[in-house]
């Protein structure tokens, strides 16, 4: 579904990503791990089209999307949950969910379905975005991405600031989505979440991928855990 080949990406003048290659297939959860500043968020932003790769190719559904602007990438069926959540503060919860949902009627995800998923949001339906608690904003951001009915979901630290109970729910949701054939690229600091949902892990360091493997492999490679994740 999504594949990156030897992608180099720059932030202004500084070279951040060095030859990143990875692939996410249908019904698969791939997780990016690594210290702060390792280039995880940059990878996601590059896929979304906020940054354009200087070298290498990004393919999505067999199409080269390397030069497309974010809105075009989103319209191809990519859902995006940014690290800072990106809630529209002056829109209500309901408006946040529906404002850019193009196929809210035809698709699987409807207001009712996302409210079932996050009952806390339904109670706040009419509240403006800036009035939400930190955790509620996080839930809203995930719900909003789902409302676009994406086939690929990019999640940047979805568990940040959420109560343990909700984190568990999100893990269940991600598993459920994977079961429905969605492809998911996940950035996560919470190792427990990563191990619970991901089929494959890429550990990043200084803009390069330095480890690739399944959950068991990762758990067993003490050295990777210690030197790149400090656990």
């Amino acid at each position, binding site marked *: 579904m999504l594949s990156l080949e030897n992608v180099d990406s720059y932030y202004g003048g500084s070279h951040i990503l060095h030859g990143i290659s990875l692939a996410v297939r249908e019904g698969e959860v791939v997780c990016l791990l690594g210290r702060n500043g390792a280039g995880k968020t940059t990878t996601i932003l590059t896929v979304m089209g906020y940054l354009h790769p200087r070298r290498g190719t990004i393919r999505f559904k067999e199409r080269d999307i390397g030069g497309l602007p974010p809105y075009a990438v989103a319209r191809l069926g990519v859902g995006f949950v940014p690290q800072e959540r990106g809630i*529209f503060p002056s829109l209500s919860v309901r408006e946040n969910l*529906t404002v850019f949902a193009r196929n809210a009627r035809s698709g699987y995800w409807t207001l009712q379905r996302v409210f079932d998923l996050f009952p806390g949001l339904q109670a706040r339906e009419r509240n403006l975005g800036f009035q939400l608690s930190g955790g509620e904003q996080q839930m809203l951001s995930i719900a909003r991405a789902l409302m676009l009915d994406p086939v690929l979901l990019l999640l940047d630290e979805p568990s940040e600031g959420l109560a343990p109970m909700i984190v568990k729910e999100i893990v269940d949701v991600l598993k459920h989505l994977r079961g429905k054939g969605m492809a998911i690229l996940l950035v996560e600091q919470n190792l427990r979440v990563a191990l619970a949902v991901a089929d494959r892990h890429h550990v990043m360091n200084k803009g390069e991928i330095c480890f690739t493997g399944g959950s068991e492999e990762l758990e067993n490679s003490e050295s990777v855990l210690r030197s790149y994740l400090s656990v």
Partner: protein
Amino acid sequence: MELLVAQLLNGLVYGVLLFFMAAGLSLIFGLMNVVNLAHGSFFMLGAFIGFSIFHLTGSFWLALVLAPIPVVMIGIVMELWFLRPLYARGHMDQVLLTFGFTFVFYDLVQTVWGKVVLTLPTPASLQSTVHIGLGVFSAYRLFLIGFGFAVALLLWLLLERSRLGAMVRAGVDNAGMAAGLGANIPALFTGVFGFGVLLAALGGVVAGPVLGLYPGMDTDILIPAFIVIVIGGMGSLRGAFVGSLLIGIADTFGKAYLQNVALFLIYLAMIIVLLIRPQGLFGIKYADAPPSALARTIMPSTPRTRALALIALLALIALPFGLADYPRALIAEIFIFAIFAMSLDLILGFTGLMSLGHAAFFGLGAYSVAVLGAQFGLNAWLGLVAGVLIAAAGAGLIGFFCVRSGGIPFLMLTLAFSQLVFSVALKWRDVTGGSDGMPLAMQPSFFGFSLSHSLVMYFMTLVFFVAVYLGLRRLINAPLGHAFIGIRENEARMAAIGYPTRAYKLLAFTIAGAIAGLAGGLYVIYNGFISSDAVYWTASGDILIMTMLGGAGTLIGPPIGAAAFLLMKNVVSSYSEHWLSIIGVAFICCVLFFPGGIWGAVQKLQPAGAKP
């Protein structure tokens, strides 16, 4: 009774015209959060182009359909090439840019259509009168009201029933995120801007047979339209509609029955609404707007900057000896306006509050000197001291109400209060001479030298300029100045670490008012004359422009801006009759090529002192 109904009808007609303006502004300013001072120009252009099309084709209806087309095209070009790069830069640059455009459009209209008042005849089919119940009414006016209501309904269907409004607000809140959800925000904004321009142009054409056509009709409709959307609620179509009709009717009745206080009442109403409901009657209280892009860290002086300042001072001392009387006088005026601009910068650039009423304090100082001299024979220097104190007291009082709010409500509150001061200056003719003005009774001497000598005047103003400059520099570098800057940067955090921020803002406002009063007093001594024009809101606008032109948030910027502005105005106007266009283009270029004002751009060239 019949008269009353006729007045009501006239009020509705004016209200509908306001609505065409306000609805567009509500989209552009309320929703897109772009301050477009050129919106009145689109109204004016629509009217004049409609006039020409009518004279070419003889058909009003053709004019109504065709005239908006070129206007919308101009609007779209302006949005694409000029405004788009400014969305992220905050209101200041937008004000400066669109202000520049109003000059260009004004000059264009004046050149093509002349300065005389033109009228567009009523279309033949609507020249008749209609009898309904209470009296005889012009068919055109009835048509106009019907047309306005129909457009309002259409807009309502388009906006409130679709997600368009929410999309634009989302784009304003976080354009990057909106793009990540599949929205093509640039295209959306261009469309909405063009639509707003269309409404203004349509309004201009239908206004033709009712209002006269003259260069200057742009500001005459722009200010009431701004008042409408602030009272009605930013970004609320319902607010724009109700507000337009309210203001239209109130204005018409006020002018008919309460000539003297009509102006007063509108501004008083605005103040009351803003104090009770800062978001306007129908507005929703949104999250605070993101902080402006004014990003300057505190720059302490270094030996190098001190040496440069000394050289500049020596140059200013040597300069007048090589100049004739007129340039000396012009530079003296620049010094006075430099003081005025620096005082505004204390609240605008350093405390982060944009005021459109600063001329009120300039006026208080000026009138104190003139009136106390005329009534009590007080020496002008003592009058100056009194003027500074009165201006400070006025600023303290007005500031007390204004500093509760921030952002656009603050801007409109200061505007309204200063217009109240203006109304007093205008209407209290016995004392102030109203728009005819009053002379300074007796020019004082400066340490025994006569101020009628241009060299003495030059050095007198220079002394005050240097004193204010040094004083403000001290203030800015002292803990108090840093506290002001902290409030500009993050008021909530300042409160959380223990600063009573409202009191600090009031203090800044009062100090700025006092210094503006000083400038005003000096101006009377310099000019020997003061009239109510000096307190009109356009005077506040000019000083705002000077400050931003030079670079708000710097100390040297405002004097540079004042110099650039006054030199352009006085020098260019003596060489070219298109001086307005030249100034306008200069503003536009300044915004595009010198972000942060002239001095702001110069500062950026220097290696920043505090980079990691």
